[in-house]
């Protein structure tokens, strides 16, 4: 009995040790980023002794980044794109998913198959013809191109449909008997129920749009149209040794995503569990 008890304690110690090592590995780059962002270029790589916060923190890095490159313009563009894409994605895909999950209509299976078939298709396979098509439509070098690119994904429809299918049909049937229209059922019953799935979709869409690099790289050519990621990359290749500034810019680019994630994360595991994303 005592040896079993000891075994349990050893097990616990191992578990915590592993956890702490992994957590350290996960968090160290972020701590480094925070620390380097307030250091001067001479202090950045100083190792013995390593100081986390220098005696004279160089907060001015956070000010200079806004003047060295048109950072404000980049932030504006990215915020605009991310918000529009996220709203469009949430509305259109939850709307379509409701029909696929709860309504019977002609060509339902065929239409859904079109969505499923493209889920395993990497965007990179068709990005070139897509670019040509958008150029024909006059969308080259327009923010609208990125919106069209990101807002109608098959992934969103799939995720929401899986969630709606876990909602019992009786609920909709009862509402129909009460004379509610399908639009009302969607608005009044389904949307309020689907918070975890919506939160999950918001996190994915927000993170993807905010952090996207290749899409904006292909479409956005002029300086005033660029996003934070493009701007930051441009800054890094121009001032590759201005580490303090690079880190300050990187910190700024992370903050909005972290805020959105931290606000919605309590729904997140639940959302994944109920949307069939686990397979």
């Amino acid at each position, binding site marked *: 009995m005592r040896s079993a008890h000891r075994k349990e304690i050893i097990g616990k110690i191992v578990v915590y040790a592993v*956890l702490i090592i992994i957590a350290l590995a996960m968090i160290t780059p*972020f701590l480094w980023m925070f620390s380097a962002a307030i250091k001067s270029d001479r202090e950045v790589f100083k190792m013995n002794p390593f100081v986390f916060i220098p005696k004279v923190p160089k907060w001015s890095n956070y000010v200079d980044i806004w003047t060295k490159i048109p950072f404000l313009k980049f932030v504006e563009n990215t915020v605009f794109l991310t918000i529009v894409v996220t709203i469009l994605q949430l509305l*259109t895909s939850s709307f379509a998913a409701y029909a696929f999950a709860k309504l019977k209509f002609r060509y339902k299976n065929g239409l859904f198959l079109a969505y499923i078939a493209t889920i395993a298709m990497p965007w990179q396979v068709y990005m070139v*013809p897509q*670019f040509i098509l958008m150029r024909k439509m006059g969308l080259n070098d327009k923010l609208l191109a990125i919106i069209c690119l990101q807002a109608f994904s098959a992934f969103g429809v799939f995720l929401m449909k899986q969630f709606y299918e876990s909602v019992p049909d009786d609920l909709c049937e009862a509402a129909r008997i009460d004379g509610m229209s399908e639009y009302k059922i969607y608005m009044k019953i389904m949307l309020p129920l689907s918070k975890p799935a919506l939160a999950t979709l918001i996190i994915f869409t927000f993170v993807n749009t905010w952090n996207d690099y290749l899409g904006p790289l292909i479409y956005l050519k002029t300086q005033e149209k660029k996003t*934070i990621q493009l701007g*930051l*990359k441009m800054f890094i290749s121009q001032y590759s040794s201005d580490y303090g500034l690079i880190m300050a810019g990187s910190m700024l680019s992370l903050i909005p995503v972290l805020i959105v994630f931290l606000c919605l994360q309590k729904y997140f595991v639940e959302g*994944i569990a109920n949307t069939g994303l686990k397979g």
Partner: protein
Amino acid sequence: MEKIKETQGSGQINILQDALKTTIEKVRDEKDEKTKRKLIRQIERYNNRIDMLRSGRRISRQTRKNLVAYSFIAPNFIGFCVFTLIPIVFAFALAFMNWDGSNPVSFEGFNNFKRLASDTFFKAALKNTIIYCVGTVPLTMIASLALAIVLNQKVIGRGIFRTIAFFPYVASLVAITSVWKMLFHPSKGPVNNILFTFFHIPQDALPQWFSGSLCVISMILFSVWKYMGYYMVIYLAGLQGISKELYEAASLDGAGTWNQFRYITWPQLSATTFFVVVMLTINCFKVYDVAVMLAGGGSGELTVSATVLVYYIYQKAFIDWDLGYSSAVAMVLFLMVLIVTIIQFRGQARKEA
């Protein structure tokens, strides 16, 4: 006027109902499955028509239902059709063409694919992408599963650990790769500094993390770090779906931790693992930003030792404007993903059978 219309209507209804009756009888006697199905559809149509005439509506109830459903789907489907489906069809066609985007298109047959066979840069890209996949997929899967199992137990600070593990996933690549490039800087970075001071590795033997053959390994390490949090969440969701009774029964039978994992957790998670492996493989094959940001120079150009398929697609299309050839490379990417997905599907189906 109204009266006449109504009587006309009821006359029509009678005719239709007679037709309906005879069709129903026909169905009863019909032996051939195909004609039977055809007749059943005919009955549906009669029913709809009668319904329409009775209620005096211009469109039947079923058409109305269809229209409502289509109105739900339309906003997404139109966008999806224009910006995804059409380009996909176009991509398949383009692989057999020669086009620079402005001059007339010419049909090339399999010439683009023949060119691929003797293209050393393409072969390097394909090789690197495959090495990257073979390294990243199993490592990420094992790491995320292990982390999920640990975090599924009752440990203090579980919520904080889960949140931290997800940080790398939400962080932007541009930002976080610039940190990695500092940490692993060949001459000044802390990692090599530790190797030099504590492990006494001579200055000129210190690893050059982002050039030469180490490049792909750095990419793999980075990707495992960045993406394991995401797959951990998926595994966590899977683990929460396993019934607790199974474990209770097993521990009554005296099964240890390892046996519980082997005979309960692993088989119960097979659907999750299938999903994780497929998603990981797809995501690995489309790697681009990780390579460009870790191994690309100032202008983001990749050398033979770090090039990947998507980089080559991008270069051929948007730098050289060799659109047909670029699409041929894209088809190779698509085929790789397709093959892996099919293999996985087969394995999954066999396990379930």
